């Protein structure tokens, strides 16, 4: 939904480029870059304020990505990463290593920051807006169309699942036990058949209202909106900030900001010592 905010009003291409570069910056920062991550988090918080989207929207969804990241990286602390790695604690006779913990921490921070950026982009632009701007930036038309149709069919498929489930439940199906597996298999098979037929009817509905690939291409080509000053300034200011954040350690060394550098390093030391304190866990 368009909340009429500054971010909503920006051209989709400008937002896509900015948040793509944000994610690249997040990935390129080395471990221990606490100040850098904090800087990027600050940037995201400012973007959230500019988007006028309630914070709860992001917090609710952030939980999913954190769980996913934990599933993917939850085992990392239990493996030794090189000879210099050392044990900080143990759980149920399994050793926990320092580098693994740092890797897990990094995974959680990076995935959260990247996911938040993607959410801001999706929340202020919408999927179709993102797709059309990607197409204007060179994504093959057939790929963009396939993604668009897949997105459209997701809702249709969701409706089919609900209908099928209702039909099954109305006749006493509960689907709790292992012997229900074959029924679930049949339902999934039925879902595929229904989805196929339904997709054909949806295609008819699209055709009947003038949809055609040629028509769509022309529409996109004809409706390239002119970028305004803000559409250039926002990514430009953001890129400068990302560069500053990305090269912060080098800049501090170059400017011989030893005291500040010490602070920066001490933050890293705090980070390590926090992990070290887990020894007593």
């Amino acid at each position, binding site marked *: 939904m368009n909340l009429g905010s500054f971010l909503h009003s920006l051209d989709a291409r400008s937002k896509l480029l900015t948040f793509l570069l944000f994610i690249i910056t997040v990935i390129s920062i080395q471990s221990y870059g606490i100040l850098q991550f904090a800087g990027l988090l600050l940037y995201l918080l400012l973007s959230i304020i500019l988007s006028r989207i309630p914070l709860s929207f992001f917090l609710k969804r952030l939980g999913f990505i954190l769980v996913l990241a934990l599933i993917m990286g939850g085992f990392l602390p239990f493996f030794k990463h090189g000879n210099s790695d050392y044990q900080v604690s143990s759980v149920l006779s399994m050793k926990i290593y320092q580098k693994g913990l740092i890797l897990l921490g990094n995974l959680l921070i990076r995935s959260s920051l990247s996911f938040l950026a993607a959410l801001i982009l999706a929340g202020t632009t919408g999927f*179709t807006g993102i797709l059309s701007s990607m197409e204007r930036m060179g994504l093959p038309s057939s790929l963009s169309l396939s993604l668009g149709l897949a*997105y459209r069919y997701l809702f249709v498929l*969701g409706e089919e699942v609900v209908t099928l489930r209702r039909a099954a439940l109305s006749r006493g199906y509960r689907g709790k036990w292992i012997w229900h597996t074959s029924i679930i298999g049949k339902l999934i098979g039925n879902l595929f058949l229904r989805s196929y037929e339904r997709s054909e*009817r949806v295609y*008819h509905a699209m*055709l*009947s209202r*003038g*949809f055609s690939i040629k028509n769509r291409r022309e529409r996109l080509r004809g409706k390239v909106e002119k970028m305004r000053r803000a559409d250039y300034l926002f990514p430009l200011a953001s890129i400068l900030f990302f560069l500053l954040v990305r090269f912060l350690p080098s800049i501090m060394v170059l400017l011989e900001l030893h005291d500040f550098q010490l602070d920066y390093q001490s933050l890293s030391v705090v980070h390590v010592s926090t992990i070290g304190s887990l020894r007593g866990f």
Partner: protein
Amino acid sequence: MEKKIVEVRHLSFSYPDGTLALNDVNLDVYEGESLGIIGGNGAGKSTLLLHLNGILPETEKRRTADESLVIVDGLKVEKRNLEIIRAKVGILFQNPEDQLFSATLYDDIAFGPRNMGLEEGEVEARVNEALERFKLKGYSGKNPFHLSLGEKRLAAMATIYSMKPEIYCLDEPTSNLDPRGRRELIEILSMMEVTKVIVTHDLGMVKELCNRVVVMNRGKVEAEGGVDSIFSNEDLLARCRLK
């Protein structure tokens, strides 16, 4: 009511399983008239409607007989004319769930006007007009699948209304509507001064809205004529499973 806006000549069509849905159908629709197409289940009414908008020859070309000819406002229904024909002929499907597919009702209603290449401001104006007309204001951000069946029917109507077609092809427009919804829709349709082709089992609506009636049976046009003469023919109605 002199100008023929739709001409159907020798139209035959069979479904992939071999069922002959249309068998040498010939039909004329005149500009500004409201034509009712009635008949029992499986008479071929919906299949005929799909040909008027060019859906079936395009997606199932092999199944339409070579000698078949459909002309809409002087244009033969064939690939090179489909873009213009689809802007002229709005089609309402029997099942509203087949018509709605977007994430929001706004996007669904805007889909047709956008395909017509209209400016976004004009699209928005048309969407709002359609929402107002079909009493769906306040639903624009909703997922169409979350509407009630009656609301889905009205939403499906709104999706073609926003295209401002010259010919409305409506397949069972009053099904799933409660009595008040049905009455309101009939009133809206009666006020619309456009050509209407209405496929229905709702004989009451045909009596109220249509000037002329075509009766179909087993893929053929069984009879056509004025409303009174068709409805007074008891044998015909019984033979075509309408009584």
